[in-house]
């Protein structure tokens, strides 16, 4: 099929969580006949199990749809999927940058929600044309006209002709397709100009190496061409280019305006950074595309093999994940309590949880994760400046002149009802209030400066709990700030367990120490002997709890039928033991390491 640039439409779908983004994507794919319903697994774009289970999109991908419009012309619609979480905001911005328009899906029963707005702003940042769609009109509580007005009032885009649809029932999907053709601008760009192609995603498979998903902005890319990654400076020879339908289909070339993939014997995704510009070695572009940023980890934690798990297996698994995830970093480290393991860096807490879950599910590993930490800067008395992510590496206080901690600019979008509660929370988390913006009468954005180490502690959970899930949080690193920080140590049965050590603000040390000790009493099972749990700062005990000795763990009756039952019980106990680490004579369950961070509803 001959591709005319004016018949291409590149777009994303943006929505608040649960407003029906993935379902709409499915319907668009189905209605353009790319896949039959039977072929289609539900929500084809979210291909990882984890994504489907959590209903969030982590890895972005694209798919090319062919649509015969009412005007009789065939159009190529490139749907580019975006991840849906603040941790991946940069990746979202890059995939939006590959588009000219975005479909905004709004739930006809719920109206505009916090994430709707956040996503609209991201799209507007990339100068995208917003195409509103009102979804879920099949529900009895749908109020499409009110919601239309809400979108017009709050976001300020015309909703007169917004399609009223039900993605679930497949209602009025054609109107969405027509609206894309009519309202999303055609791409521009000269196919004869020097090559500029934006990488918006990449993944690794052992057969082809790295496959990059690209949007050609200028020029043409074809096999045999020598290309250069403008940010990393790496050069490769193009092996194959093509488009994504239900599978990869190789093509002769990709021209300005097109979306597709390229392979070039690339061994590692770190060489194909998202946001980088691909150009032609022989006819290079003068400037890369704007907006490239090397994404740096913000949150670190230790990952260790659980009892009976092998260090090398964990390393192999991390390596395999890393070829697909350039933002995951790790290096070996040693803990006195946990032995050999890895210090890993993540974009944020969700990214961290995803990696942990993938290690457990996809690689079937039993791992122990230590409390997350951020990077602290330490100025020593001798003038040396250290950056540490592992609290155990903190030099003795006598050698430290001062310490600095990372500060983020946080934007919390919330209905006005919760402003008081959020302010109290931020205050409690050492936040500095910057300002409050009214988005509408009942909705505001609170701007705060917050120490990142408070954000990763239990801020998300607290925010969710205090606002019944209505508030959303976005943050970006602002810089470093001098702060009075201390290392808080935890002793179990008299032994310092380095994996529990945390760096905390001096005002928080006592409270945090006590909370952790109390939590550990709840999570660590009772042993044959009493186990003291202590929190200490600089060798001084600031809190103490005791896990009482186990007095009785015996089955009184054990006859014929009891044996199977007893074995089941023992098997369960044994399974539980696998997820523990022995620290001295004490078995500490995996959850203990993270439970110390969990938000306590009572407080």
């Amino acid at each position, binding site marked *: 099929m001959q591709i005319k640039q004016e018949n291409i439409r590149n777009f994303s779908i943006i929505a608040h969580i649960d407003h029906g983004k993935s379902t709409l994507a499915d319907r668009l794919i189905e209605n353009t006949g790319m896949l039959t319903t039977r072929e289609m697994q539900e929500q084809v774009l979210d291909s990882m199990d984890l994504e489907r289970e959590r209903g969030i999109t982590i890895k972005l991908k694209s798919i090319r749809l062919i649509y015969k419009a009412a005007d009789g012309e065939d159009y190529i619609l490139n749907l580019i999927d975006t991840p849906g979480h603040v941790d991946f905001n940069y990746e979202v911005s890059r995939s939006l940058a590959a588009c000219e328009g975005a479909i905004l899906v709004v739930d006809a029963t719920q109206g505009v929600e916090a994430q709707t707005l956040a996503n609209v702003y991201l799209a507007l940042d990339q100068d995208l044309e917003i195409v509103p769609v009102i979804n879920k009109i099949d529900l009895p509580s749908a109020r499409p006209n009110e919601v239309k007005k809400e979108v017009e009032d709050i976001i300020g885009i015309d909703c007169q002709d917004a399609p009223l649809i039900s993605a679930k029932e497949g209602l009025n999907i054609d109107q969405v397709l027509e609206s894309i053709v009519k309202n999303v601008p055609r791409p521009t760009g000269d196919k004869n100009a020097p090559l500029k192609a934006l990488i918006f995603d990449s993944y690794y498979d052992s057969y082809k190496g790295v496959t990059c998903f690209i949007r050609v902005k200028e020029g043409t890319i074809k096999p045999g061409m020598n290309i250069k990654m403008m940010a990393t400076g790496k050069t490769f020879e193009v092996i194959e280019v093509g488009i994504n339908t239900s599978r990869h289909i190789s093509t002769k070339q990709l021209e300005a305006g097109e979306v597709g993939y390229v392979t070039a014997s690339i061994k590692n995704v770190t060489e194909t950074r998202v946001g980088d510009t691909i150009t032609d070695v022989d006819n290079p572009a003068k400037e890369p595309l704007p907006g490239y940023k090397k994404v740096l980890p913000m949150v670190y934690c230790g990952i260790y093999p659980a009892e009976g798990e092998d260090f090398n297996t964990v390393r192999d698994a991390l390596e395999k994940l890393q070829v697909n995830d350039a933002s995951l970093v790790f290096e070996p480290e040693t803990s006195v309590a946990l032995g050999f393991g890895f210090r890993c860096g993540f974009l944020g807490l969700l990214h961290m949880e995803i990696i942990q879950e993938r290690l457990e599910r996809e690689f079937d590993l039993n791992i122990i994760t230590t409390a997350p930490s951020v990077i602290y800067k330490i100025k020593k008395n001798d003038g040396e400046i250290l950056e540490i992510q592992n609290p155990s590496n903190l030099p003795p206080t006598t050698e430290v002149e001062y310490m600095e901690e990372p500060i983020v600019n946080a934007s919390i979008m919330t209905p006005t009802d919760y402003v008081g509660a959020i302010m109290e929370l931020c205050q409690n988390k050492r936040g500095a209030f910057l300002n409050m913006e009214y988005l509408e009468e009942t909705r505001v954005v609170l701007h705060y400066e917050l120490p990142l180490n408070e954000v990763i502690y239990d801020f998300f959970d607290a925010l969710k709990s205090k606002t019944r899930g209505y508030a959303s949080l976005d943050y970006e690193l602002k810089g470093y700030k001098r702060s009075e920080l201390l290392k808080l140590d935890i002793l179990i049965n008299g032994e310092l367990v380095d994996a529990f050590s945390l760096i905390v603000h001096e005002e928080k040390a006592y409270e945090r120490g006590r909370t952790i000790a109390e939590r550990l009493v709840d999570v660590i099972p009772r042993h044959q002997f009493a186990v003291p749990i202590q929190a200490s700062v600089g060798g001084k005990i600031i809190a103490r709890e005791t896990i009482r000795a186990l007095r*009785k*763990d*015996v089955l*009184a009756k054990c*006859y*014929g039928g009891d*044996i199977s039952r007893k*074995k089941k019980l*023992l098997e369960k106990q*044994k399974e539980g033991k696998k997820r523990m680490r022995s620290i001295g004579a004490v078995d500490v369950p995996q959850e203990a390491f993270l439970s110390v961070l969990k938000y306590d509803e009572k407080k």
Partner: protein
Amino acid sequence: MSNLNKEISMYKDILSDFTLSTIFIGGGTPSSIDTVYIEKTLENVYRTFDIRKLNEVTIEINPGTLNRQKIKSYKDSGINRISLGLQSLNDNILKTIGRIHSSKDFFDSFHMLREEGFHNINVDLMFGLPGQDLPTLENTLIKVIDLDVDHISLYGLIIENGTLIKNWYDRGLLDLPNEDLERLMYHKSLGLLKENNYEHYEVSNFSKAGKECKHNLTYWKVEPYLGVGLNSHSNLFNKRFWNHSKLASYNKLIESHILPVEGEEIIDKNMEIAEYCIMGLRLKSGINKNEYLFRFNEKIDNRYRKIIDKHVHNNLIKENYNSITLTNKGLDLSNLVEVDFMP
């Protein structure tokens, strides 16, 4: 013929190579049904299996359900051991835990049984019961010991999910002894029973010399047994299998001449060894190292040396020249040891 008897007959050919040495009629309250059913069932068993080595036939009896006619019938049917479900001699406690019998029923039953010539009588007792304190328990024990009963089973109360007791417990209606008192009750009882020449031969079982329950020893030595009736369990041909627990399914299968088995677990060598050790630890005689070697053709050290050392160090087990046994502390915490013996 009853479906139970049909089930028994179905095993005739399957078990033709086995000899029967003990029978145990229990589960529910077998003493409450008409003795004719017991007679017929036992007759059927005697006809069906090789009983030349049969030497112990036990029936479980609820003291509130017994009379002299029943006792005579049991005797005539070849029953030679009685297990009386007493639990406590404190009538308030008996009422709280929903027993239909009184302490008087127990004494009456016991004397009748002795008069009719039963010389192997077990009494089931419990500790850790709601409203029970140490003197109450000791009082029951002393009175039972004074009767010179042949065998005593003494169980700590376990609150199981889905029971009425659990419901009361959750609602805070039960005045249960705390953990420390519960353990004190157990260890005090061990002392008292020992002083009175009851050998503590299994975690919860005590007997006069030679009066151990041979039937239950089969379970603890992981030897083959057949269970018949609703929800009964068997251990035969390297399998543990169990019958349907719903009467309708049970009846339907029997009437279609199919064994009413609901499920099975294959016991491979690893599991058999684990079971042997786990059950062996329940016995005072412990795991017998030579017997282990003879039965499994390997030394116990091959699999379990580290675990044995660990728990000897923890003072939960004792290692003797030819055996491994739980210590007093191990009796309280045996699950901690046993879990490590699982494959």
